[in-house]
């Protein structure tokens, strides 16, 4: 993959982030009321307000205010949370890792099961498995996450208490944070029991968050595989005497991946939205829940920070999807 392509994409990323920063900056100016008052909350002392006003340059023109704002976020200063008094950056950092752990687990479940189901459905088209899994997928895409999460909690944590219903790990089992991903940290600390406990905590929210993308992946994989299986090069692979598993996994699936990756990329917004809901239902201490709590508490500095981080995340994931696409399809490599 040519470096120039990556650097061009990184430059685009930068432009997008600048745009988002402008929007976030304007957000606070659009809301009626004094931005300093909004940021510090209604119980702020007058001298604090005065200090923040000069700090934000509120008496100066918008461009200069924006410059000040940009400088501070580049320094990593996202302001202070009204609710906790802690720097927003620190609060976001911890929660971001919780969200990443949950999303990675969900993506893993969704892609693995979705692709397996899609491939089997395509290879055994019109079989009982095909009809069954596509029916489930249809239910899956139209499932309200909120309802699904509550049902799972009711069934597997309350009625038959097999799994924990909230949090990332049981009290007292926490391992020292190295990566911020609890499952990994407990492994690093060599505490297998704690790792198992963390995995059990992860299971319900990850399955909830995985449902919709899993259903999407299964459907796209199936239709994409059906198309690819009719291609001439699949016939060529068979004509070479290759076994059916090699034909399907190496020659067909590799090509069928491309639309799956695209559709996943297009549905990222859906995933992030799902993360917000899932974290709220399962009291998962991640960014999604944090942004909801911040909105409720009118914690504008925190909300601003979250929006910025979400934008960075979306842009980064989009970049990864595009690079993945280029890696998967040599025909794009030359044009890129």
């Amino acid at each position, binding site marked *: 993959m040519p470096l120039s392509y990556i650097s061009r994409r990184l430059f685009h990323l930068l432009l997008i982030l600048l745009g988002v920063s402008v929007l976030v900056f304007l957000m606070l100016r659009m809301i009626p009321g004094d931005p300093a008052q909004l940021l510090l909350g209604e119980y702020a002392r007058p001298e604090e307000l005065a200090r923040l006003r000069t700090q934000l340059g509120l008496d100066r023109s918008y461009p200069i205010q924006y410059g000040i704002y940009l400088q501070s976020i580049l320094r990593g200063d996202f302001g202070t949370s009204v609710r906790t008094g802690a720097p927003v950056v620190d609060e976001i950092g911890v929660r971001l890792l919780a969200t990443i752990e949950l999303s990675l687990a969900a993506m893993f479940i969704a892609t693995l099961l979705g692709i397996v189901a899609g491939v089997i459905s395509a290879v055994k088209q019109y079989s009982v498995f095909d009809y069954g899994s596509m029916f489930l997928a249809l239910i899956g895409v139209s499932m309200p996450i909120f309802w699904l999460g509550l049902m799972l909690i009711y069934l597997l944590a309350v009625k038959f208490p097999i799994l924990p219903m909230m949090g990332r790990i049981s009290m007292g089992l926490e391992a020292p944070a190295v990566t911020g991903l609890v499952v990994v940290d407990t492994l690093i600390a060599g505490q297998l029991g704690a790792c198992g406990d963390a995995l059990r905590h992860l299971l319900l929210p990850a399955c909830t968050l995985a449902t919709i993308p899993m259903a999407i992946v299964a459907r796209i994989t199936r239709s994409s595989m059906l198309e690819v299986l009719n291609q001439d090069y699949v016939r060529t692979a068979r004509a070479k*005497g290759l076994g059916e598993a090699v034909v399907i996994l190496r020659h067909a699936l590799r*090509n069928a991946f491309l639309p799956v990756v695209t559709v996943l990329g297009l549905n990222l917004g859906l995933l992030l939205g799902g993360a917000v809901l899932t974290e709220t239902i399962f009291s998962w201490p991640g960014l999604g829940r944090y942004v909801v709590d911040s909105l409720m508490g009118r914690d504008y500095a925190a909300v601003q920070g979250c929006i910025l981080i979400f934008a960075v995340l979306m842009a980064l994931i989009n970049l990864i999807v595009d690079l993945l696409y280029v890696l998967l399809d040599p025909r794009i490599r030359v044009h890129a």
Partner: protein
Amino acid sequence: MSAPVLEIKGLKTQFQTRQGLVKAVDGADLALGHRETLGVVGESGCGKSVTALSILRLLPQPAGRIAGGRIIFNDRDLVRVSRAEIRRIRGNEISMIFQEPMTSLNPVYTVGFQIQEVIRKHRQMNKGEARTEAARMLGLVGIPEPRARLNDYPHQMSGGMRQRVMIAMALSCHPQIMIADEPTTALDVTIQAQILDLIGRLKEEIGMSVFLITHDLGVVAEICRHVAVMYAGKVVESAEVRELFAHPAHPYTVGLFESLPKIGGRGGALRPIPGVVPGLFNLPPGCAFQERCFKAEPRCRQEPPLRAAGADHMVRCWLPGE
């Protein structure tokens, strides 16, 4: 004909479709001689490709099915050998190239990988040896700088080059038979000639037999020893090329010749065969060609017999011999 390496007897291949059962091949008989080239000709839709795919059991699944007949290869009936056995034969003892070089190679793997794959499947070679062999094969089919081309992806090559790659792949395990289904139809005229020359040359070099499907009688005249004419799923006439060109017996074959421009010949308007290949759902009883035949008679409504029309010359028609 020398002792045949491949004999197709009464092959019936059918497709289950929404509109009903399609009898794409309906009792075809063919024989391919040792180290010979057999040309199979006929208008499109007459069952040539389906016959070829039946040999290696590559029919589209689950619609396609061999409903009857035998395909004898080295004392084995390919219709009945196990799946493992047919996989050992595919690409190894019998290989196949297709009409569409643009889509027959997998776009996400290098041509080198795709050639090595078949070599490593059937020949005991490690990666390095297979790579060297793949490069040698690319050189053999006339691709310049073969070592470097191994790393190319199919989209970086022209149609002609891709068909050469397909040929290299098909020949890399030194098969006894190569099936070529209209290998040049999709290519430019100049490239067509090059590819046909190449197939002819490699056939001698490797010592294999070629099952060549084409709708081009010119191609047949040039490189085939025997020729079989197919119509609506049946072989209606077969003979040595020279015999067939001198004494075409079946009205359909005659029609095929008259629809051809004559090289350096006495001008004259081309006479296309009237009508089209009938739909396979509603074939008339008896000879399938009767509705387009300028010599049709009432008895053509009964199944015509297979008769000798000369030395080693068979024709499925009521007419000759009277």
